[in-house]
């Protein structure tokens, strides 16, 4: 059954989210979400790269020899990422310094190559672009939620606007240092996955094996 274009765009938001259902792109989600502004910028770049990458791969899919397709896909993605990186360095130098290597590492983000390989290679241009945007937005949604939670509880601010006054400046808010460390993103993403799966039990995986009922009777 062919999905409609609207479904192609919206399914990756919750129902087929690359981060919470496919557990892809976790590394960058841990690294860039200490603050909301870096999360937003990263989201924007990933959406652009995904849309353009999937679109370009889709355009040349019929000319690509099967045996070299991965190399071609990676070349396209890498070129796009390098362009994005250069643009960021030119127009948002401070933020790009804080994102450091993680813009460059979008090349290795499994979501980008995964969508090119599994969707854009088999679909026309428009659906491929929509699929790229949809997956990028699904990734962005989680990134923004995690970034907002981490910045709010870790520093008491959102987008660098101080909302709660920390105790060091005489306020009543005690910053959670934990939120600025990568493990907190694991906790938060885990919590989001749990929340989504308890709402949509269809996403819950089947257990790989089940324990037999105990037959122990005495010591």
């Amino acid at each position, binding site marked *: 059954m062919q999905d409609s274009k609207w479904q192609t765009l919206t399914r990756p938001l919750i129902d087929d989210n690359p981060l919470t259902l496919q557990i892809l792109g976790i590394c960058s989600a841990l690294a860039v979400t200490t603050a909301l502004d870096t999360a937003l910028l990263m989201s924007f770049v990933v959406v652009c790269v995904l849309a353009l990458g999937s679109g370009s791969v889709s355009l040349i899919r019929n000319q690509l020899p099967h045996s070299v397709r991965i190399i071609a896909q990676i070349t396209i993605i890498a070129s796009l990422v390098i362009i994005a990186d250069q643009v960021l360095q030119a127009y948002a130098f401070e933020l790009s310094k804080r994102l450091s290597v993680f813009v460059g590492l979008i090349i290795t983000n499994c979501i980008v190559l995964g969508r090119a390989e599994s969707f854009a290679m088999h679909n026309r241009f428009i659906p491929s672009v929509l699929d790229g945007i949809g997956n990028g937005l699904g990734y962005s949604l989680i990134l923004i939620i995690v970034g907002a939670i981490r910045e709010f509880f870790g520093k008491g601010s959102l987008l660098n606007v101080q909302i709660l006054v920390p*105790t060091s400046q005489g306020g009543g808010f*005690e910053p*959670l*240092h*934990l*939120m600025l*460390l990568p493990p907190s993103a694991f*906790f938060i993403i885990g919590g989001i996955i749990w929340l989504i799966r308890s709402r949509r039990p269809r996403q819950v995986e089947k257990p790989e094996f089940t*324990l037999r009922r*105990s*037959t*122990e*009777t*005495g*010591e």
Partner: protein
Amino acid sequence: MASMFANTQNAGRRYQRLFKLRLLALLPVCIAAVLNTGYQYLAVLADAPELAVDDLRGNLASGLGAAYEDPGLYDMLAAGLAHFLPVLIVALVIGGFWERIIAARRQRPIETGFILIALLFTLMLPGAVPFFHVVYGMSFAVLLGKGIFGGDGKTFLSPALLGVAIVQVSFPGAASQHPLWQGLAGYAGSDAIALFNRGGEAALSAAGIDPWSAFVGSVPGTMGTTSVLAILLGAALLLRFRVIAWRLLLAQLVGVIVIATLFNLSANESGAAAMPAHWHLLLGSFAFGAVFIACDPFASACTNPGRWIQGFLIGALVVLIRVVNSTHPDAVVPAMLLASILAPLIDHAVIAWNIRKRAQRHV
């Protein structure tokens, strides 16, 4: 060692026995904790009466009549209880609250494990811990440490240890904010170790810490972890009734002694590396952690060679982190967390090795 006990009535009885023994073993530690906390509190007040703060615990201590001039046993007891009991009660209430919610959602009876978790958690905190931190750490301990893994006996980390670790990393600077307890005991455990790292044995004796006082436990530190004597009493009980594995305990001692001696031999001057093994065993919360946390029957290796390996690993890691990483002067929490995580892997390797050995015997 996840499901050591099958879900039968008999196993339930065995679990209850284990639980009661572990609580009983903590009794001497609790008494020592109360007395030493009171003693330390009054000692600071006697030095600097202006540091008395107008909070719940300070008022409780003075309300119970704890006088800092020439304190007697009653004064220490009252001041200690005023600090120990509120923390414990908050921990118990929060633990019970989450336990009740979990039990209601899973339609199962309430498990008693949270009592033990609350007690261990309280004993590993300094006396001036803010109540919010207790609420926060205890919630993590019961929900993430125990609840999501299926409850008592199915945990792979010690939940109390997880709670302490979470509080430590979340509020690294918090312990030094309280004016009265400044420099006494941070979450990072023992300042006595930090003292030694800076000034060697001379700094310790200047602060009035000698091996005997560290053994009895009249040194500053987190509430329950200072008295090696009380911990040994608890350990004797646990060993007598075979609740904890002697191999695991002994291996930890061996690990500390071997690695500390190696560092001593390589150290050319005073500093962290020069700390002799007996100070490693006496100071900080190593003794407490070794007996009550690392030997948690559900969070440690369950094969005999695995116990030797895990124990040695803990001892070695504690000394290594203490010497190399000055931000963790105590090092017990990270070392034991790491070793707990590795325990299933160690067991797996030991069992695989055993299978191979036996297969070779019967070609």
